[in-house]
């Protein structure tokens, strides 16, 4: 339907763009007014993303540079103090966000693509293919997230690529389930039948007509899973099974701090706050998006 109403290229005058921009700003303003908590979440998400993307360049010293200043508390020279090897903790904290966040975001993106694809195929194929897919999904969902992650780490390993696959595999099953159920209801819509009646083939019907309507609700629901994925990626590193030291990562920084906490409590407090704020912000923002999209999905 979008294909039929799409304007000719070049017809769109600048003032239309401006109106669109104003509309976007208005919608954003409404989001902030109606979902103040979600807006707080958005602020946290942006903060965390800034640290993840630019954090490594916002430091003055190499996060792995040793110095004789062991376990010092926060000072003007070392804003977050130093760790047991005299490494500047501010530098380590600022570099430590990227691995966790990158893993979670990449996992969600890949999982979203894979899960949507298999979910649509499963819903479209129906019959025994659908049944088999669903039972496989069920068997993945039969395990709590962290247990499945531990198993996959055992099988795959702990390199960056392995961890990306682990997190992707965690996202795929729930995404298949959501995408399939949305696709099942959309396949009954008249426009799908109309598209077939106009002679469109299946790939075109699924790609051009089903997918644009399927993606938003699935994406909204998957947004809410980024929080738990952050938890699992930081949690694996905390258990020593994720990002390996000396590469700083919030989870392994927290784990390493456990031995030193008596003499240097700041080593535990900073990564603890960072992980909590990241998960908290993502969850608040995700919940708010979900509420705006469809208030009926509001559960807790």
């Amino acid at each position: 339907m979008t294909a039929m109403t799409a304007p000719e290229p070049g017809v769109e005058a600048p003032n239309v763009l401006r109106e669109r921009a104003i509309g976007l700003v208005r919608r954003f303003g409404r989001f902030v007014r109606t979902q103040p908590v979600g807006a707080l979440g958005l602020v946290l998400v942006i903060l965390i993303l800034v640290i993840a993307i630019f954090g490594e360049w916002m430091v003055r010293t190499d996060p792995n540079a040793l110095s004789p200043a062991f376990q010092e508390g926060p000072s003007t020279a070392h804003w977050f103090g130093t760790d047991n090897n005299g490494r500047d903790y501010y530098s380590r904290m600022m570099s430590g966000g990227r691995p966790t966040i990158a893993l979670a975001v990449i996992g969600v993106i890949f999982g979203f693509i894979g899960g949507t694809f298999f979910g649509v195929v499963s819903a479209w194929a129906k019959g025994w293919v659908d049944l088999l897919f669903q039972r496989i999904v069920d068997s993945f969902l039969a395990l709590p997230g962290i247990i499945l992650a531990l198993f996959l780490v055992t099988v795959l390993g702990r390199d960056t690529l392995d961890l990306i696959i682990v997190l992707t595999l965690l996202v795929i099953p729930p995404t298949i389930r959501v995408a399939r159920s949305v696709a099942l209801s959309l396949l009954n819509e008249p426009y799908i039948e109309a598209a077939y009646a106009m002679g469109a083939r299946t790939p075109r019907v699924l790609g051009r007509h089903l997918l644009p309507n399927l993606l938003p609700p699935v994406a909204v629901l998957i947004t809410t899973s980024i929080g738990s994925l952050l938890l699992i990626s930081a949690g694996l590193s905390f258990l020593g099974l994720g990002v390996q030291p000396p590469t700083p990562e919030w989870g392994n920084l927290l784990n390493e701090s456990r031995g030193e906490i008596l003499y240097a409590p700041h080593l535990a407090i900073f990564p603890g706050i960072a992980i909590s704020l990241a998960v908290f912000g993502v969850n608040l923002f995700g919940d708010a998006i979900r509420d705006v999209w469809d208030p009926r999905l509001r559960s807790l």
Partner: protein
Amino acid sequence: MTAYIVRRLVAVPVVLFILSIAVFFMVDAIPGDIVAAKLENSYTPARAEALRAHLGLDRPVIVQYGDWLGGIFQGDFGNSLWNDRPIRNELWDRLPVTLELGLMTLLMSTMFGVGAGIIAGVRQNKIEDHVLRFVTTFGLAIPVFVSATLVVGLPPVFTDWSIKFGYVDFLEDPFANLGQVAIPAAVGALAFSSILLRLTRVQVLEALRQDYVRTARAKGLLGFTVIWRHVLKNAMIPVVTVIGLSLGGMISGSVFLEQIFSLPGLGRYIVNSVNQSDYPAVQAFVLLAGVLFTLVNLIIDLTYTVFDPRIRYS
């Protein structure tokens, strides 16, 4: 409804069968030779061949799978690659610790979560409600491994008190044991009770708005009786479900809590096994967790029909 129950009952073995295939063959596909790893320096082709035959690794992989699955049905999970002890004993020895931790977490979070949730719901928008909801924000925001690390680490920094490590068996000294498990349980309960509190509150609010509650009030019942007999009875159905579903959370929580509080339970065992690449142990644990989780989910879904006759599955 019978059709629904039958369909669920049939699905469970299928799901577990697929899980067992995945658990076995994914581990089987791991590159590397277990025999070479086990023999290390004493490796000779002849010894490797003998050990392979001893472990049954020279047979076709399908036969190995059948043997493994058959053993599990008889309670034989194979031996640990790490210390050669039967995995069944390893798991059985650690089960009580995890069970105790899980039950205590459940008890604490139910008592606090449901109790405070009722208060928050009944006193909506009053000071109690605001305070409790503020507290739950922290409970939901702070991951269990963060709060546990701080609970273990921070008190000795500022006080003379510290948590005593070194697990004491319940039979040796029941009070020391309970005290030891109570702290990690409370940490776990912080997160879970927040979820329960919010859910209970919403449910109570919804039940309070029902006609039958107004009727009960109108016929002059005491406030307490109305809450107890009419509101809670109807508000609790989803809460009971979430409590049942919390099993997965308990297992996940035990992984971190036992690690941080040095409790010799299953959660710590699985992390160690993963660390040591003790594949049979990981396989056994994962499969058992799957069985447990699936069965509990099934029971919850089925009891739903008992708790709430309005629900009719079609």
